[in-house]
Structures are given as C-alpha cells and as structure tokens.
C-alpha cells in the first residue's frame, strides 16, 4: 500500500487548515482575555488578585493536554451536558491557557514602564485613559514583543495537542499517514509545514518590532 506525494500534501494541507483555524481564533481571543486577566491580577481588591493568582497557578501548573481533555470530557461526564464540538473544546482550552500566559506577559510589560511616565501624564493633565492609551500602551507593546513572539510560536505548535481529542489538525493527519502507510518522511514533511507557518509569524513580529525601534522605551 502506498500513497502519492500529492495525496500526502493534500491531507496535510487539510490538517494545516484546521491548525491555522485553531491558532488564529485562539490567538485573537487570548489577547483580550489576557488583558482582562492582567487587569484582574493587578486589581487593588485583594480577593480578586488572590483568586487570579490561584487561577494562574492552576492553569500554568497543569498540562495543556489535560486541560483540553477536561474541557471536552468533564461537562458530559460530570454534568451530563452535551459535549462541545471537538475543535471548539480545543480552542476553549487553548484560549484559557494562553490568555493566562499572555496576561503574565502583559503584567510584566505594564509594570516595566517607569512610574514617572504615569506621573508625568498626571501632572500634565492627561486622564487615566489618555495616560494608558497615549503614553503607556505603545511602550508596553514594544516591551512585550519578544516574549509575545515566543508565546505565539508556542501556540502554533501547541495546537498539535488538539489531536488528543481527535481534532484532525496537521499532526494527527501526519500520524494517520505514518500509521497507515509506514512512511517516515511524512514526519519531516510535516515539520516543513510548521516551519513555514512559524517563519511567517516570526517575520511579522520582527516587522512590528522593527517598526517600534524608532524610540527607546
């Protein structure tokens, strides 16, 4: 039994579509949720910030694969609720996981901006919103670009964990081909798919970093 190069490519491209879908939706949703988590963990209300600390500890301290399984199986097994569609369950778990990581990056970025910038904004009459959006935000974005690039690349690769609940992303597609046709080169070929996606993302982030190089933050 054999499979042509074109067929392998088509099957992997099909999986890559799912991978990209999971990645894009997860990334887009993780950013605002990360901002919200960051805001909550910086809250002056000690109860809220403590709850956030515990939540961050749990999410960071357990494997993403486990979280995907929990989101997919637990509602049905424990509460007899209908399971979420597989891809949705994977996205939900990835969004929760990555928004926590992103929130920590945002928090570090926010706290790295000198207090003097905020104070200067205050004595110059800027409102709190203006201070954040006109003074701090761009400086924060500049500071968080390198860790955000890393996390985004990790996110692309972590979409492969969705295969644990049988989401047909590119790794599962490759695994099926290897298992069925006993050909190893498919694994290296799959690596090229990831390298291309990661390469594009790296270039995009580098471009943004370069654009922000006009000032020293």
């Amino acid at each position, binding site marked *: 039994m054999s499979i042509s190069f074109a067929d392998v490519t088509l099957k992997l491209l099909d999986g890559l579509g799912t991978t990209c879908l999971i990645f894009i939706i997860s990334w887009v949703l993780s950013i605002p949720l990360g901002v919200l988590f960051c805001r909550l963990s910086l809250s002056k209300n000690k109860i809220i910030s403590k709850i956030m600390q515990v939540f961050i500890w749990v999410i960071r301290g357990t494997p993403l694969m486990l979280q995907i399984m929990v989101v997919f199986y637990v509602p049905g097994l424990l509460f007899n609720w209908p399971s979420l569609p597989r891809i949705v369950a994977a996205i939900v778990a990835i969004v929760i996981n990555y928004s926590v990581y992103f929130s920590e990056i945002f928090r570090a970025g926010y706290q790295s901006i*000198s207090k*003097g*910038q905020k*104070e*200067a904004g*205050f*004595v*110059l*009459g*800027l*409102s*709190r919103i*203006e201070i954040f959006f*006109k*003074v701090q935000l*761009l*400086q924060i974005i*500049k500071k968080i670009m390198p860790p955000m690039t890393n996390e985004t690349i990790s996110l692309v690769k972590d979409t492969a964990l969705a295969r644990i609940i049988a989401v047909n992303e590119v790794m599962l597609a490759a695994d099926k081909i290897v298992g069925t046709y006993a050909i190893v080169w498919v694994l290296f070929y799959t690596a090229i798919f990831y390298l291309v996606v990661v390469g594009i993302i790296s270039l995009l982030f580098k471009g943004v970093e370069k654009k922000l190089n*006009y*000032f*020293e*933050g």
Partner: protein
Amino acid sequence: MAYLEIENLAKSYDGKTVLNSFSVSLEKGQILCLIGDSGSGKTTFLRLINFLSKKDAGKIFLDGKEITKEGRLTTKERQAQAMNFGLVFQSFNLFPQYTVMQNILLPIKTKVKKTLKEKKLSRKDFKVEYNKIMEEKLKEADNLLLKVNLQDKKDSFPNQLSGGEAQRVAIIRTLMLDPKVLCFDEPTSALDPRLKRQVASTILSLKEQGHTIIVVTHEMELASAVADQVIFLEKGNIIEKGGREILLNPQSDELKNFLSLEQCEEINNGQTDDPETERARGTLFSLSQD
C-alpha cells in the same frame, strides 16, 4: 497673604514622618530653594504640592484661595489642583515614542479639548475653535523652541537629545500649560558643570518673566545663584530658613555640617561675581516671552 502659602504640610509613611509641619510663604515671582540630604523630605514636599502623594495634614493657599480641602479628593479633583503647579521631573519623563514637538503639544491638546468641552460648542464650532487654538499653540511652541536653540530638534525623539536638551523640552512642555508655580526636582543632578550653569540661567530667566518657582536641589551652587528663599530640611523638619545668605552664614549645626567647607567656598565664588555664574544669570539663553 503671600501668593503661595503652605501651612503645616505633613506626611508620613508607615508611621515614619517624612515631612513634618512644613510651612512657607512665597511671593509671586520669587524662587524658593529647598536643600537637604537625600531622604530629608524635599522630594516628598514636591510630590505633595503636585498632588502625586496625599498629604496627611496641612493647607495650601495659592493666589488667595485654598486649593486643598479636607477629606478624599477624586483623581480628577486632585489633578485639577495639581494643574496649578508645573513639575519638571528629575529624569524629565519625556514620552519616548513622541517627538519633541509631540511631547510639547500632547498635554496642551488635552487641556484645550477640556476647556472647549466646558463651553459646550457644536461639533463644527468645536473643530474650528480647536484648530485655531492649536495653530497658535504650535506657533508658541515653535517660538519657545527657537529661543532655547532647539528648533532643529523638534522632530527628534527624546533618546536623540542630550540631558540639557531633554530638560529644556521638559520645561517648555510644562510652561505651555501656564502653571502658577513652576517646580524643579533636582534640575542639575544629571548634568555636567556647563549645563548646570545653563539651568541656573534658565531658572533666572523664568523668574524674570514673573514665574514663581520652587527648586529642590542639593547643589549649593545652584541654590546660591537663584534662590530668594532657602529652606534647609533634615529628616522632614525645617532646620533653617531665610534668604540665600543662610548658605554663607549658617546658624544651625546641621546646616553647617551640610555645607562642607569646600561647598561654602563655591558659594562665596558665586557671590563674588564669578564670571561663569554671571553668565549663567541670564546671558546663555533666554526663555523670555515677547
């Protein structure tokens, strides 16, 4: 009542007093210099009068009106009071992502918008009025930059400026808001000797324009060159206050200790028409308004 009256201003952190019953009167157009070691309470005083920290006690009267009130102030109220004072930070705190001109115009844009919003103009009138005022402000900023030899730097970013240039930009940014009292926090700390003299010159020229100024410094040369009043602080307490002559004839042991013999000599030089200091007194450059 003097132009600026401060009565029994006090602040403590975690039970430790950092400013104790601080009172001072300052006439319009005068320069007050606060001197003292690190941790003496100088910067705390500046933070309190600029509403960056909350006072524990005390009153501030400006131009005959009390600008402090008992109880909790909202951030907006605190800020409205803070706008009576202009603060030039020790590290200037220019916004790094904006050019010199953008740094100068950003706060004024906000101020103009706020003022026009209070007039409740129609959208069209608002736009016309706003553009008209901003055009004038742009000219004013250009003019000020020209006077401090920074016109060619208006499109530069803060990281492309020297310490002295950044400080002049920070001064213009503050001046554009037309504060009633101008405050400088350690204005010479990051500068070389030549630039330190320029700072003295700048402060004196601002005084000539009628600005009321408070300078926090530990540089005796600067205090002796510009001060009308000097207050020496130690551990949050006023140890000695008076005219700049207290730097020459200190009465308290604390001030005597503070002013080392070498520093005293520098002050004497400053008082005996040292050509460098005289130059600093207003000929290097001027910020005077037309």
